[in-house]
């Protein structure tokens, strides 16, 4: 376990926004009936968060639940806790039509932060990132140029973007280019 590393070893770029690869985090994909009370209880018990509504995010410290699809959540927690979280949910929902899987190693996560973070993201994703339109509590599954991505706000001026691990370099390069000095757009000023 000690030999686990992220795809880019914590790569970082400072431009008109800061791009930083996040440390390893735990991720559990949960498929099931999100409206079910038993699922909600299992998530609360094992992952420590409530089930978010459509396109929503619920965050409790390092624990976050992201709504990914009408029957799918992505749960975030410390890396070491993912296997037991998945196992806990599966045990609680044994016999039901639900499935939790540890996918902690399948993705890369980036933090895009700073006052120009919205502009940097708006160069790559067909999403309305205007303040007041895209706010904390919302997650968007979209694309970063040609790669699948999901984006949500994980701080006042900080966005989190996740993509598959294999395209981590591609996405990091994209974000860095979009954040290169001189690329200020001024659309959200």
């Amino acid at each position, binding site marked *: *376990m000690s*030999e*686990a*590393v*992220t*795809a880019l070893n914590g790569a970082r770029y400072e431009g008109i926004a800061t791009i930083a690869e996040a440390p*390893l985090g735990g991720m559990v*994909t949960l*498929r*099931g009936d999100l409206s079910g009370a038993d699922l909600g209880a299992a998530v609360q018990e094992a992952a420590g968060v409530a089930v978010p509504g459509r396109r929503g995010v619920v965050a409790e410290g390092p624990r976050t639940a992201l709504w990914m699809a009408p029957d799918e959540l992505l749960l975030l927690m410390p890396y070491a806790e993912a296997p037991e979280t998945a196992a806990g949910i599966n045990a609680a929902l044994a016999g039901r*039509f*639900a*499935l939790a*899987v*540890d*996918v*902690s*190693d*399948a*993705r890369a996560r980036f933090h895009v932060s700073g006052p120009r973070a919205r*502009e940097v993201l*708006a*160069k*790559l*994703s*067909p*999403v*309305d990132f*205007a303040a007041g*339109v895209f706010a904390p509590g919302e997650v968007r599954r979209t694309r970063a*140029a*040609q*790669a699948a991505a999901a984006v949500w706000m994980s701080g006042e001026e900080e966005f989190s973007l996740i993509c*598959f*691990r*294999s*395209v*981590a*370099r*591609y996405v990091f*390069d*994209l974000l860095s*280019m*979009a954040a*290169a*000095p*001189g*690329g200020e*757009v*001024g*659309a959200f000023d």
Partner: protein
Amino acid sequence: MSTRLATGGRLIDRSARRRFTFDGRAHEGYAGDTLASALLAGGHTLLGRSFKYHRPRGLVASGAEEPNALVGLGAGARFEPNQRATTTELFDGLQAVSQNAWPSLDWDVGVVNNAFARFLPAGFYYKMFMHPRPLWKHLFEPFIRRSAGLGRAPSERDADRYEHFYAFCDVLVVGGGIAGLQAALAAGRAGARVILLEQTAHWGGRSPVDGVRIDGGPAEAWINAAVQELDGMENVTLRPRTMGAGVYDHGYVLGYERVGDHDPAAEVPRHRLWRIRAARLITATGALERPLSFAGNDVPGVMLASAVRDYVVNWAVSPGDRTVVVTNNDDAYRTALALKSAGLEVPAILDARPRAEGELPEMARAHGIRVETGKGVAKVRGGRHVTAVGVCAQAGEGAVLEEIACDAVAMSGGWSPVVHLWSHCGGKLEWDAAQALFRPDPDRAPTGHDGHPFVATAGAASGALQADRAMADADENMKNVLQGIGRKSPSRKPPKVESAEEAPLAPVWQMPQGAGPALRAKMWLDYQNDVKVSDVRLAAQEGYESVEHTKRYTTLGMATDQGKLSNINGLATLSQALHEEIPQVGTTTFRPPYTPISMAAIAGEARGPVFQPLRRTPMHEWHEANGADWEPVGQWRRPYCYRRAGESRRDAVHREVRNTRNALGLLDASTLGKIMVSGPDAERFIDMLYTGKMSTLKPGKCRYGLMCDENGFLMDDGVCARLDERSFLCHTTSGGAERIHGWMEDWLQCEWWDWQVHVVNLTEQFAQVAVVGPNARNLLERLGGIDVSKETLPFMAWTEGTLGGFRARVFRISFSGELSFEIAVPASEGRAFWERLVEAGEGFGAMPYGTEALHVMRAEKGFIMIGDETDGTIIPQDLGLDWAISKKKEDFLGKRGMERVNMTSPDRWKLVGLETLDGSVLPDGAHAPAEGLNANGQRNTQGRVTSTYYSPTLGRGIAMALVHRGPERMGETIAFNVPGRTPVKAKIVEPVFYDPKGERQNV
């Protein structure tokens, strides 16, 4: 000749000089100049050569519609051809070169075409080069290719960066003239999210030049106040230097921002493509002036009247000391007045109308300018520059009544609203006979997803040409738009606009109206493509009645300016020749972009290293550091082989094969698709996906399976492992993971939505390594932690645990025929795990091997490869895989397809092995000819090679092939065509070349 005036110039800053070169010679201009105004100020009236006849050409316009003044800009990695001088802002160090002239702009040998011009009429190429056919390829085409084209292509990779930007708004206004500003103000005040685009660097459009007064003061004061107010609104985004390029379905609009063109030293993206979703689009794109068709209207010095006053008022450039104005409307009188007030001579205004008694003509007369009504230009004297015009009666045939010496001609044939953006997405036009123009028909607007119009017009773009009417039009249309999106428009009166009242124009499509063929052959319609009135008439005479056909036959409007000046004049000429009304002839189709945009802006960030996503496994950097020769597999890069110093690729592959067969090979198999299928109905689902009966698999076991599409064609294969009672892990091909995942979801979501199955793509969760060869078990035992003995972990079984400290799943499967394990560990630990294997394997002769060694070894064993043995037309039975198809299952995807007559025919080509008699390696894809010809007169064939390699294990070439009734023909010899060689004979054999009993993997 043209020169800079001593005073004036509202856009230039005389304190800021700008140095530039044109064709290598040094010039100077001011900040605020365009390249065109600076060149004109420097006396340059000859700026280019026409496309077909290489005629000398000067500036006609002052903006985006300019057809002639195209130059090559920049040098080396920043060179770009076909840039309009009129829209190029001047900067220090600008380098421009003229185009389409050789050896020089002043002395162009291509101009000999002039003498032969009458032999190059419309359709010349079609007529001339049809016969004899062989001459086309060897004589005509090379000649035309050499003489055609405008600028030359850049030779270096573009040094700049480009980007996209996604924007969203309620109201997008294109055009920053007074109508656009008013529309944006109204929308902004109503609280809507507004984006306002203006293609130039300046707000306000033509009004300041035309002397319009707003709210009692000069237009400029109102414009500045409007921009300031808009700038202060949080809900409004102002974007100068950004052109509305194209309008598409669902309110999607492309904006083309030239961020860095005017300041290449700045470290900014050169262009930015705005990809805007707007609930409503307002086109306030103004209008373009039309030339008049008189003989010699292309001689340098003949310009649009509006352009002449733009150069005088905006940039303090005199196009000539003596300018004759020729017009069919009142607006051109403004040019005469502007010239007069700049202290320049206007010898005469030739007005084609019988009378001119409006406010502006009377002002001209009051300024002592001679006004001749009912007159026109019969011809223009001068070759490289205007020296005089011959005056004639517009009603006559062109007899010259008088010659007037002059060095510039300002012409105006009326105005055409810029309807391009309105038309891009289906907006229709109506003919306004009073103003002789096509204008948007508000009753036939482009409609959005809800059936409501999503485009409206404002100002001159609506056909409201006079400034006061433009303002009123903008205000009224904007109110309707705001109402349509549920916004309350502020109850404010529009600003009061004062503009001279203009009398109606008289349509003039030919000057003089009775001009004969000799004059018509000198009247240019399309300057860039050299199309004249005579060409369009010839097209009509030869039966081209549709405007779209005439366009293509004559190339009218097909140049880089897309006929901005020529379209209306051209179709009016056509309608006259056809004796039809203009609306009956109609217009050609307006297509995006409005003016050309750079290819690089379209590509955006997608170039160089991020041209497309490149997928890397967790071990990618290790491979890179250890000599990997890369092979693209889908978007992945996989090592083809690992070359050692001095080793050829071929040698490396052979070494890797031999080492794996004799000692130990390591393969990064992380790219394999790994899809988890789980749920109460997983067994039922999995039995539909695979051709075999997978549901009988016991937890802890693996089985090879095939997936077919509904037609029975084989589309993927791989090993399926049963994880537990209700879960399976399906391995797919490297390139197939996403496709198969989507395929599964498709069936679950669209067809079998009530089946309780979840599918999760775990491809990227795991790094996977194949440990292959006689020493494979030794290595895993050395790592320790999992019992991998033959008894505990037999062939086609799997187990999980901790292997050498790594959380691991170990699958005992083989794609090489050797003793082999595939081990999956969390991707984050993949690199460490791989390095541990390399290090611990040293004593066992471990070497990494690449995809080519994998291919050779699987071919030696007769294993098929999706994409080699299959091509979307192959069913499993063709490959001898009948054993993997369940005969007991009631149904599976592809079952019905396989039962069709053509699929069960004994005449299908089937998989066999081939051994060349001479031991050589057959080329991939080689065909074996058969007797006779097919229905198309082509030689019949009886088979083709699907996989072919040199087998280092066997020391000879081996191949797999699909051969007509192949398995029935064992031992037969057939010949394969090899380019440049005599056909190669090969014996049909079983496809398994090595260890047919499978003893090596079962130890």
